[in-house]
């Protein structure tokens, strides 16, 4: 074939191609799952959602759980596994195949998920959020235990209403992510643990006070902000390495910072702080008396 022929061929292909060949469209799929309440007295839920936007909130009383996902089928597959013997649920997405690099707009790729849980059934929830942006409101649920593991994400956690039941323990693991937890007093958790890598965590203790709270913070190269309602007794025991502690209104005694009259305070928050190269900040909520 001559050079001229080759040129003509390439030109033909160039003009014919756009008409004949639509480029590969993205394969987004929707998945939904729900299950009615059938006398369960506990739900141990484990959520996996690696990337995208996720909402977790209370659902309808008659439904044990409900999930609605929209996901990239080339990268992930839905998983829904409820074991009625143990009342344990595994829900969310698992990755399939090779991730690879996809050059396309972020909006196209965005996966979304909404998880809802019965407000009546005691809930022990573990959410592995990877790099998902999470909006979580568990106010009104019967929360017994909460674990949120986030990698490189921005999570917003709130308890807009007081929870029912007794929350024993809440653990937040933040890798290189930001966690903004508000109205934690409504959660009624006895122990709140924050383990951080290079992320930031803000813990706000607004809400209806039910019990004293013990907070354990272990941060490396991050920042922790404690937002405490004025009038609450606060005691911070800090083991710091190259970390700053901005504790306005607290008096220091060795490694312990306390509010005046901590021992007799009606509401108490005790904080055990281990921080290396982290900044710890205490903010007081409400106006001064």
């Amino acid at each position: 074939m001559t050079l001229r022929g080759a040129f003509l061929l390439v030109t033909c292909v160039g003009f014919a191609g756009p008409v004949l060949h639509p480029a590969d469209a993205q394969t987004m799929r929707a998945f939904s799952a729900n299950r009615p309440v059938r006398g369960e007295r506990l739900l141990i839920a484990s959520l996996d959602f690696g990337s995208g936007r996720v909402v977790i909130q209370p659902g309808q009383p008659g439904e044990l759980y409900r999930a609605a996902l929209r996901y990239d089928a080339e990268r992930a597959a839905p998983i829904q596994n409820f074991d009625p013997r143990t009342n344990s649920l595994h829900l969310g997405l698992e990755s399939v195949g090779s991730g690879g690099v996809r050059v396309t707009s972020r909006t196209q790729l965005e996966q979304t998920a909404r998880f809802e849980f019965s407000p009546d059934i005691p809930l022990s929830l573990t959410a592995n959020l990877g790099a998902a942006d999470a909006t979580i409101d568990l106010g009104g649920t019967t929360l017994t235990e909460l674990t949120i593991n986030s990698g490189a994400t921005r999570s917003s956690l709130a308890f807009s209403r007081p929870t029912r039941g007794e929350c024993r323990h809440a653990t937040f693991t933040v890798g290189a992510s930001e966690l903004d937890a508000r109205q934690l007093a409504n959660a009624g958790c006895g122990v709140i643990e924050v383990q951080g890598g290079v992320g930031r965590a803000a813990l706000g203790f607004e809400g209806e006070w039910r019990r004293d709270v013990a907070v354990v913070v272990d941060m490396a190269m991050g920042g922790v902000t404690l937002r405490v309602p004025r009038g609450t007794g606060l005691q911070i025991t800090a083991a710091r390495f190259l970390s700053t502690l901005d504790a306005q209104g607290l008096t220091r005694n060795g490694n312990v910072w306390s509010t005046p009259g901590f021992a007799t305070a009606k509401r108490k928050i005790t904080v055990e702080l281990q921080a290396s190269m982290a900044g710890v900040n205490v903010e007081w909520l409400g106006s001064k008396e």
Partner: protein
Amino acid sequence: MRAGKAAAALLVVVTLISAGRLEAATGRGGWGEPVSRVKNIIPLIFLGSPDVAPQAVPTAEPQGPSVDPAHLNQPAALERSLRTALRRPLDATRLTVVGGTARLGAYSVGSAETVHGHVVVLEGDVDVHGHVDGNIVALDGDIIVHPGASVTGDVLAIGGHVREAGGNISGSVQSLEAVPLPSTAAAISIPTVIARRAAGFLGVFLTLVTLGFGLVTFGRPNLEIVSDTVMQSFGRSFLVGLLGEVLILPTFGMLIVGLVLTVAGALLVPFGIVVYALLAIVAILGGVLAVAHAMGETITRRRMAQGFKASPNSYRYLLTGLVALSVAWLAWVVFGWVPVAGGLILSAAAILTWFIGTVGFGAALLSRGGIREHFAGRLIPAEMLTDEYLWATPQFGVPAVKRPPKEPGA
């Protein structure tokens, strides 16, 4: 004959394009089972969704397709198994359902009927009026649980929906949307793809030009030394760059370990991480720009030797070099959508870019970031430093102009 060859080649290209279209239509990557895909899609194109005569699906041979619907925890995997089992014509389908039965086409459970075991229905809706003691799976169909009906297991509709129309489902209810076939609106047209890639390409190009011009403005001596190192020690630069790429992570690890082991150095770990990363980026990026500078200089000088009039300066060298380096990516922008060829062009562009980056990185390392001229060919060997040039006859420049003209008779 030539026309025949061209037509044959055109036919091959169009076939490849059509294959790509089918691949897009199925929404899956790879080239597996193209024939079956064609078989699956052609009836949809010409006949629409076929009505399947309701029938039982015979059990497959022992090594044949088999599914176990007792656990519906991985609906996508189950869908794959079911679609793999489907045959055209549909009555050639064979499937073994562990603990249940398989059906083709619409299936109904009467109000006085009780079905024990799992039910898998392919290519049809499931209407439950009676009782099913097991799980129900529908592929490309809806599951409707009518008033008075009950299902004592889980239900899963793949490519359909579950409609709880008054019946009772004890287990979980799942719906997995069908893989969307590309519509005209959803498909991304080739001009759009080209435009998007061109925009990305232009952005990267302009960024490199901006960075390069900044480098010329503020660090021209260093850039020129790295560029000269590329020209004078090309092979050596490549080898050093290759070695540098291999050692970049171990060196980083050693640096961090070394800092951590020393008490004072531990404080510098975050600083060390940032500085090391920045140095690596600057070395690679600066190296690429230096290669562009070297290419541009070579191209410009060759053109000037052929009579092209231009002012030789580093800005021109850099711009010319970057344009030359961009040719491969430009080819990908324009022809990247072509099946197979697009991938090859992309691979070639990526390899070329890596090669250039490696050479530039090596040159930057050899010249210590444009400080050391040892490999830049700028140092004149001592034996060349004679005073012989003082006796040479000036051929150009001011001395040549001032030289008295030769006498005609001399």
